[in-house]
């Protein structure tokens, strides 16, 4: 039962962080929300007893991908312009 509640909480966090990625105008905050999404996916892999995949997801998804996004945002602009 407790495991079911944890999975419901993780899936709710996944949906919330995905909506945050879509709705942020600040691209740095959107990249960090994407990193938090990957962290929750890694937590879900660990709950489903795949710690091997969880380590890969935490390192690649939450670490390297967020770093690549931050490097790209530092080279361009941080705030998204209003579309005409």
């Amino acid at each position, binding site marked *: 039962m407790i495991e079911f509640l944890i999975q419901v909480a993780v899936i709710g966090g996944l949906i919330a962080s995905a909506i945050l990625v879509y709705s942020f105008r600040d691209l740095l905050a959107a990249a960090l929300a994407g990193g938090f999404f990957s962290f929750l996916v890694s937590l879900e892999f660990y709950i489903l007893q795949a710690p091997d995949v969880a*380590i890969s997801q935490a390192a690649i998804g939450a670490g390297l991908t967020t770093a690549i996004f931050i490097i790209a945002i530092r080279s361009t602009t941080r705030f998204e312009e209003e579309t005409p």
Partner: protein
Amino acid sequence: MRMSKIVRTGACILYPLIIVFGLYVVVHGHLTPGGGFQGGAVIATAAALVLVAFSHADIAGMVRKIVFSAQESLGLLLFIGAGILGLLAGAPFFANILANSGLLFGLAVPPGSNPGDLNTAGVIPIMNIAVGVEVWGGLAIILMYLFSATGGEGA
């Protein structure tokens, strides 16, 4: 553009801890979850942390790209060398000739349930270490080329 002093100090404190955890995942690849690829990706995350925290001029003063390129080639050579080691002993390619031999990583696995002995499994830890070194160098050089292509400057 470099980040604030808080970010730079935090990156310098976290950098050795992340590298030690990544090396733990690599070396214990035959005992615990994880292995060469996962540990190498964790260590590359430490390089990404330093790349994000410092400016382009600082990174150019710290390390050159040829180091990571040579490290990637060294990992691949070590992996192929571990395979040819079996051929030199008269066994098939990638034969596990070091297991139960008493040499490097050569002890026998103790019977029954036990916490795991690091000094077992023969060629497999050597292949894990080779893959870890190769993934470390490969992912770090991808990040460094991206970082230098964008110049690390901007708004």
